[in-house]
């Protein structure tokens, strides 16, 4: 297998962009009409994902130590879509047909052999990881909604109970599919440390135009069913660290950090912890009341709410959320004002811009990049 030849031919093919993935899926569905049902009606996002994944694989094709874990994860992730062993050869055949089509005269037996070998390897690694995973956990968890609490017109807190225990680390997230939007999976973080009764909380914010988040916030009811994928994510607590903790949450980015907070609270001697919770308006601080109670109970926790688009202190007449007075400013500014975080481990979650700016500010303040763990959401929660 000639890695460079693979890369060159893929670079040539990839220049033709969306047409490549469009051809691939059409070829796949013409040959295997029964597979069409596994995908959503709109395929543009799907095609971007495919091109992204292929690009990533080809880029690392001569770097197996990096490629293999990526493929293993990909294989495990695909279980929730109902992908099984027999689907792999069909995908391989269409992939080769697509490459051949777009390579044109550059296609020859050697290239075909290279690609065939590469795909054989890729599917073998993915499938092995999937099979191994199948020994330990189901392809997905069926869950039932047992609580829906609308904290704001566009923010809901959901409580669900899976039909079997779903082990995860605080800070991780799972892909969620609702019966009203089949085959649309969106990622949400568990907002609590694992409980004895296995119930899980999610904080969902309605994304304008988002097909899934709209349904989850607006029309989900107790008794409705969801499907959950396997837990993923690296925004998890560094258990070995003796340092103090800084948590910075923008809007529903609070969810994973609240789970981490609960995890800290279970320690015999929790580290000194600051939680910054920011939103545009006071109303956006949807969980402030509960956080304030926590902060009063836990002496090692300091809670700092912040609002950027409203003057400080003006709580809307009917919404006296907690006792804490919100600071005015964006999270990076407010965090920056509050002093030195050099000796802290920082965990940041929220909208992409907020996360990027907070990260930059922390680095400016001298925090080591290795000690900042962060996660963004946007498209993943539509």
């Amino acid at each position, binding site marked *: 297998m000639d890695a460079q030849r693979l890369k060159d031919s893929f670079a040539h093919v990839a220049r033709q962009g969306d047409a490549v993935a469009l051809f691939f899926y059409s070829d796949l569905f*013409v040959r295997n009409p029964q597979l069409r049902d596994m995908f959503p009606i709109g395929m543009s996002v799907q095609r971007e994902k495919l091109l992204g994944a292929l690009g990533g694989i080809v880029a690392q094709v001569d770097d197996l130590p990096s490629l293999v874990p990526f493929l293993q994860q990909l294989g495990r992730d695909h279980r929730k879509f109902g992908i099984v062993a027999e689907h792999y050869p069909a995908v391989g055949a269409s992939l080769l047909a697509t490459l051949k089509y777009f390579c044109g005269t550059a296609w020859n037996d050697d290239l075909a052999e290279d690609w065939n070998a590469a795909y054989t390897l890729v599917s073998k690694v993915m499938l092995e990881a999937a099979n191994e995973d199948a020994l330990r956990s189901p392809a997905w968890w069926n869950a039932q909604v047992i609580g829906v609490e609308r904290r704001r017109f566009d923010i809901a807190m959901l409580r669900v109970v899976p039909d079997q225990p779903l082990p995860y680390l605080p800070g991780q997230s799972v892909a969620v599919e609702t019966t009203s939007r089949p085959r649309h999976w969106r990622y949400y973080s568990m907002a609590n440390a694992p409980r004895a009764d296995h119930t899980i909380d999610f904080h969902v914010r309605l994304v304008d135009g988002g097909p899934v988040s709209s349904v989850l916030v607006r029309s989900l009811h107790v008794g409705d069913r969801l499907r959950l994928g396997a837990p993923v994510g690296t925004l998890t607590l560094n258990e070995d660290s003796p340092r103090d903790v800084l948590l910075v949450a923008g809007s529903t980015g609070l969810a994973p950090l609240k789970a981490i907070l609960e995890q800290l609270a279970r320690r015999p001697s929790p580290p000194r912890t600051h939680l910054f919770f920011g939103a545009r308006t006071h109303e956006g601080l949807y969980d402030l009341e509960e956080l304030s109670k926590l902060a009063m109970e836990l002496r090692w926790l300091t809670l700092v709410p912040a609002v950027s688009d409203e003057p400080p202190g003006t709580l809307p007449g009917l919404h006296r959320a907690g006792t804490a007075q919100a600071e005015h400013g964006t999270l990076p500014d407010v965090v920056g004002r509050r002093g030195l975080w050099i000796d802290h481990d920082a965990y940041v979650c929220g909208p992409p811009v907020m996360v990027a700016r907070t990260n930059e500010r922390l680095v400016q303040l001298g925090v080591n990049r290795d000690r900042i763990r962060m996660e963004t959401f946007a498209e993943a929660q539509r």
Partner: protein
Amino acid sequence: MNSPHTPAGHHYSTSSDGGVRHDDGRYTGPDPAEPDRTGGHNLPATMGESRLTPAELQSVTFPRAPLGRRGYDEERVRSFLQYIERELAQIFSERTALADEVARLRERLSGVSSGGVPPEEAHFQAVRILSQAQQTADLYVADAERYTRELAQEARQYREAILSDAKSQAELLLDEAHRRASAVAETAAAAAPPPQHVPSGDPSSLPDDVRRQMEREIAYLRTYSEVYRTHLRSYLESLLRNVDEWERSERDALPTGATEPPRPR
């Protein structure tokens, strides 16, 4: 008649020539002297429409030759043979026509797979058609999502406008209420003579300035609570209207979710 594909006009034309076997003179049919068709002979009664069948052939009988001659009636035998000959010719010509038809169809079939569109090209055609259909579907989905997004954004702006309107309205109302309440209380305190009928003796025993102070408080609180209740009601109502508006637009914008459960596998 049995087969609509029978290409030969012969069969029908011959037989529909008006019952050849009757009229051409060579086959005269049943002897007029012997009207009993089943007795003297049993030539195919098929006359015309249907085909000569093996069973009919088996059951053929010929009348004896006229008195003084041996064997069958020569005339009848000859005419029967002619009839058979015509039938056979008919069958052969039909068979040839069918063979031609088969050959033609075969040719057309092989043209599809070799001369016309090769299978690979047909596959690409299918892929292209599916791709186009998919792109159309993607467009529709994107349009629907954009529409929903715009609608939601508008509703959000609308909601914020209503809320900030209500808020400033409420602040104005409150200020006004405060001002009026204290004005009313001031005048009441200044003008009101000490009440004549006091149910309880206690208040009257209070010093005048304290009692006036209390009355002023009561008047103030009454007015304030009334104004506040009114304000609260209108505030809540506008909030509710807003929520209704939001829900309606959301519901209209979203397709009613497919109720189909996810396939188990």
